């Protein structure tokens, strides 16, 4: 009871009292305290979850590591704050976390009224549905009358209402605050349908008692561009966060990997030389407020975008999600980074 209110109150109070130091020079603050405070999911396999030793791993976690590598040259200088969907925005607004890397959808409302800034999209997603195979449902249009489990305070909840309304279908929403609560309720049969971002469904299916008894329906009912968010009002920090992602994508574009980054420094290609900061009189990092080898540090720490994807959610992981929309722009996907010049 009171715990929720107290948490929210503390958040609100932090908003009231804390924001002073958080307003302008985030980079200087992060450097001064010696670590990056990164807001992540409370537990979404493949995106952000603690392993048995308590170390955080995942796609979103690797982004935090990449930022730390760019700032400190050391990917371990990150502290993670697990946040529920409800807690995540006040945590950024109040300066409790320096960056939110928590499979969060970029929307106009969040970009404006909530005082946040979004730019790079680290993962192009869309909302989907999962059902028990035994129900014999083949399309989302057959879901009339179903009880649908959904996490509160998400764009998912709003898309769900819109989709069922548009298609004149009846449904009964069963709303939980924590992802784990949604999982166990769906697994116990409280709901017939589980809806969230499709990547999330693939991830969550692995945690169910019998993953093979469930299937993800083909429909994608929304656009869910997921990406990191920072507070408004600090352009330098916003640029750093954006360019960390662009560095990951450019590295894949150039074919630079964790294994060959040192070799690539000797490349004759001027684009690669400039990107890795080995060009004479380079200002490629100092203009950002970082060192010139910031991109090298990122790639050494986590690899390029493709490697991060494969290791956490793609072919090299239990989730085996296709690259799809997240392939590079020249391979049929949407991942495109501005040039380093």
């Amino acid at each position, binding site marked *: *009871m009171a715990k929720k209110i107290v948490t929210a*109150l503390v958040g609100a109070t932090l908003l009231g009292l804390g924001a002073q130091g958080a307003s302008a020079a985030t980079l200087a603050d992060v450097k001064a305290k010696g670590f990056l405070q990164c807001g992540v999911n409370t537990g979404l396999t493949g995106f952000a979850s603690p392993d048995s030793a308590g170390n955080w791993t995942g796609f979103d976690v690797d982004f935090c590591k990449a930022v730390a590598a760019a700032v400190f040259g050391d990917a371990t200088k990150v502290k993670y704050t697990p946040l529920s969907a409800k807690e995540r925005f006040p945590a950024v607004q109040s300066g409790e976390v320096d960056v939110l890397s928590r499979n969060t959808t970029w929307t106009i409302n969040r970009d404006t*009224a*909530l005082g946040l800034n979004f730019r790079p999209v680290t993962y192009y997603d869309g909302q989907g549905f999962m059902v028990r195979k035994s129900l014999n449902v083949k399309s989302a249009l057959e879901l009339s*009358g179903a009880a649908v489990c959904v996490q509160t305070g998400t764009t998912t909840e709003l898309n769900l209402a819109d989709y069922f309304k548009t298609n004149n279908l009846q449904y009964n929403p069963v*709303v939980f*605050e924590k992802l784990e609560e949604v999982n166990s309720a769906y697994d*116990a049969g409280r709901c017939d349908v589980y809806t969230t971002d499709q990547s999330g469904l693939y991830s969550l299916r692995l945690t169910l008692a019998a993953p093979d008894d469930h299937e993800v329906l083909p429909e994608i009912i929304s656009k869910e561009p997921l990406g990191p968010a920072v507070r408004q009002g600090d352009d330098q920090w916003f640029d750093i966060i954006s360019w960390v992602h662009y560095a990951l994508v450019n590295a894949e574009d150039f074919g630079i990997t964790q294994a060959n980054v040192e070799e690539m420094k000797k490349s004759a290609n001027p684009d690669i030389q400039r990107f890795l900061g080995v060009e004479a009189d380079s200002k490629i990092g100092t203009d950002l407020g970082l060192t010139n080898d910031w991109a090298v540090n990122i790639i050494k720490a986590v690899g390029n975008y493709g490697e991060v994807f494969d290791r956490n959610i793609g072919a090299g992981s239990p989730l085996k999600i296709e690259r799809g929309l997240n392939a590079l722009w020249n391979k049929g996907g949407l991942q495109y980074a501005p040039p380093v010049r």
Partner: protein
Amino acid sequence: MAMDALNPPRKSGRTGSFFNDPKVRGVMYQAIALFLIALCLYWIISNTVENLHRSNIASGYGFLNGRAGFDVGQSLIAFTSDSKYGRAFIVGLTNTILVAVTGIITATIIGFIVGIGRLSNNWLIAKLSLAYVEFFRNIPPLLVIFFWYYAILSLLPLPRESINLPLDTYLNNQGLLFPKPLAGDGFGLTLIACLVAFALVIGLVLWSKKRQAATGRSLPVLAISIAILIALPALTLILSGMPLTFEVPVAGRFGIRGGSTIGSEFISLFLALSFYTAAFIAEIVRSGIRGVSKGQTEAAHALGIRPRQTTRLVVVPQAMRIIIPPLTSQYLNLMKNSSLAVAVGYADLVAIGGTILNQTGQAIEVVSIWIIVYLSLSLITAAIMNWFNARVSLVER
């Protein structure tokens, strides 16, 4: 002289300094404290407003008029995704009140039964009551809620294998489904009959009390009241040609659908709050009854009053004076504990407020609404109980 130095004459004119007067000093200290508190509040509020403004976060209560965009599973009033945020808050408020009121009623009934059971001479009843109290009193309410929720989810069957109860009622792990009454033309007459029956019963109770006070003769009031409450509406319903139909739950693709549903979230929260609070109420009832001197019972017996009447007319009225004040605080606890609903997905004020908070980002506004609503609900409950307490308390002449 030494004596004069220790006790200077009060009216010397020289020592009557304004600031030496303890009364004046007391007032001044209070004024300073009040000023500091006000300063602190002003600082907090102005700083908050300033910071919100600086971080470009919209503020104010205008968002309550915005379209909600989400649906709510359990609602006592009509609500769709096209309704406003303000209405969503009202849905949450009615859901909170629903679970609090039903919980308070059940907790009181269970609590009185168990409390009296603890005083029973029957060994088994006394020990079972003791075990009940010790079990529920010593675990956190959140665990009790989870206990009931997962008990319901895992013990009851999936919707496609619902348990079929009599009267077209079905039970599964999504909730309890029962036929939904649909009022036809002329059903208003039956409602009027209900009101008339209710008024008759109140009149009967008052009259019989007066008669007993005057003549000492008593009536079987309970039996007559029940008869009136059932017979009058039923007779009206039949005479007006049965304008009442039922929408019966039927099997569909996703199991039993249709009719009215009480969701498993409500059931588990309601049971948990009732059982948890009842344990405390039982102890209050026991202490209240124990608090009535044994001489009262003996005196009543000596006057020839039968044991049952002794309990009802002598012991309980005096016990109530001890019971009610702590009972009030249990009612308040139950109401506040109802905000744990969010853990099992029951759409109470905190759960819906949380959704709104997230969709709009208006953290401070939503939290302030929560605080104001819970504060008002608690104060209203306390006021009702204080009024009741004043009625049963000892009238000193």
